[in-house]
């Protein structure tokens, strides 16, 4: 039983790292602009479909180029949604709720478009070699799994470094805490925000490809990921990227352990129950700075 539990935790860390990467990206947009960018997930799915379709049958080196195309698609789509929908609504003084509902609409439209363009069938990356499981001391992990966990930690490190050590990061924090004041001291908020959306989109592609390789590529994959990412960000706490990362890992582990320990499928229910408990006990989140 202990081995099973240990294996579940490893599995949870792998999936959790994917959610964590997505959550850091979701958090970038949410913490900086306050927009609940739920269409984030559908853009993730779109980019992953582009990559898996263009990359089919190409040698590994060429897939890197395909990855760049995927990132470009995701960035372009995100900026189009920001400029064409969110920014317009915000200029008219729409509430955050209205922007969220518009984002839901975008999400649904993109998902429909994905199925129309790429077909309804599930697609797969040819990642069998990476998925082969190696055992150490009775516990197994694949190279892909190890890469995923490393990618999660590296994503967090990069974003924390950007936020806390670079001029750009300070500008982002300034825009996040008071956009008008930031503008007053010579920061151009829209430049910062565009860069934030682009970075978030890039992270979403990393998460999408890793998830697609670990499981498979479906049009609906994004909705699930953006929901879990949003839960991770809210559980993690306001303005906390470490919180978003930790939230993602916790969600992954809770899901995997629930799947091992309980009969039937209870992963989502367990995660949601945990979310409700966290919100009741600590409304500001696990690692939040107390203000929201």
């Amino acid at each position, binding site marked *: 039983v202990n081995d099973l539990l240990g294996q579940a935790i490893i599995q949870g860390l792998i999936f959790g790292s994917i959610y964590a990467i997505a959550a850091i990206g979701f958090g970038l947009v949410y913490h900086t602009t306050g927009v609940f960018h739920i269409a984030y997930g559908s853009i993730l799915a779109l980019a992953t479909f582009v990559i898996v379709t263009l990359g089919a049958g190409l040698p590994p080196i060429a897939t890197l180029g395909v990855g760049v195309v995927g990132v470009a698609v995701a960035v372009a789509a995100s900026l189009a949604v920001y400029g064409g929908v969110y920014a317009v609504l915000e200029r008219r003084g729409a509430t955050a*709720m209205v922007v969220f509902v518009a984002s*839901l*609409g975008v999400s649904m439209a993109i998902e429909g478009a994905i199925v129309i363009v790429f077909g309804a069938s599930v697609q797969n990356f040819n990642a069998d070699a990476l998925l082969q499981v190696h055992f150490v001391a009775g516990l197994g992990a694949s190279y892909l799994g190890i890469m995923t966990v490393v990618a999660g930690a590296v994503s967090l490190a990069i974003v924390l470094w950007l936020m806390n050590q670079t001029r750009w990061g300070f500008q982002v924090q300034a825009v996040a805490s008071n956009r008008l004041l930031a503008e007053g001291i010579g920061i151009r908020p829209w430049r910062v925000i565009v860069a934030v959306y682009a970075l978030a989109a890039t992270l979403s592609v990393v998460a999408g490809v890793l998830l697609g390789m670990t499981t498979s590529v479906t049009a609906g994959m994004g909705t699930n990921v953006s929901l879990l990412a*949003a839960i991770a960000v809210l559980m993690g706490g306001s303005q906390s990227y470490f919180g978003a990362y930790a939230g993602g890992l916790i969600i992954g582990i809770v899901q995997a352990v629930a799947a091992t320990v309980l009969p039937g*499928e209870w992963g989502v*229910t367990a995660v949601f129950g945990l979310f409700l408990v966290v919100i009741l006990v600590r409304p500001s989140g696990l690692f939040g700075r107390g203000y929201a």
Partner: protein
Amino acid sequence: MTAVAVEVSTLILIYAVILVGLNLVVGYGRIFSVNQALLFGVGAFAYAGATHFLGTNELLVSWAIAIVAASLLSMIVAMATLRVSGDHFIIASFGIQLAVLQVFYNWSDLSGGAAGAFGLPNPTLLGVEFNSPSLLLGLAFLTAVAAIFLALLVVRSPYGRLIKAIADDEIAVTAAGFEVLPIKVGVFVLGGSLAAIAGVVYASYLGVAQVSDYSITVSITLLAAVVAGGLRSVPGSILGALLFVGLPNALNLLHVPVSISGPLQQLVFGVLLVTVMMFLPGGMAGIVALARGARLFRRRSSADGQKSLSA
């Protein structure tokens, strides 16, 4: 009426009940909930459960179970999260949909798992059995009339004015000495109960209750329909139901292949949701009101729907 016309009318009336309920929450209360399809499903499985475990097809029994269950779920979500922030509420309303559907899915004695609960009997109300399509249409009609009447009553009551006032300026209402949270929870419970009532009728009409019919996509589509129909307009919700049922049928008539029709509906409803939010805050009811307002030298009809965005 032809069989198709009876079927389409029945569905429109059932969805009108759901959308009128959703409009109370989203339109009047400005609380964007994304789990209306779940509460609809709660009604459907209440009927499946009542016929299966209690051996009764009496609608009053199923309605009672459905209303209690939907109210409890709504209260859990709303009371836990509305006091934190709107964003928390949204995610909770998303999450509870997935979580409770998973419970239904796992509870295969009730739901039949992936296959669904089949062969549900025709419903009876106080001993009268609704055993033909036209009688079931009558049932849907009565339910819709009752729901619309109730909604209009609520909207025009002092309580309804409070709901609107909270949506427009929560702080002012608090300052006036009202406890805001119970009022918000109340409207959410009311809207959810209407969806559950509709769910009972829906399952008894179809004879089937399947988990996949109450997915998150359905919730978002319902949201799109209520927004497109017109927020804060009860007739708008009926227009929304027309759209919700009409679009798939129209695509069907145009011989759009099934593999395209599903995603195309998603695309259309998604685009509709965005464009209406951006350019037509009053929805279809807003257009009707505008047209009427122009003809009658703008008597007071257009004002209500047009304010939607500025709140």
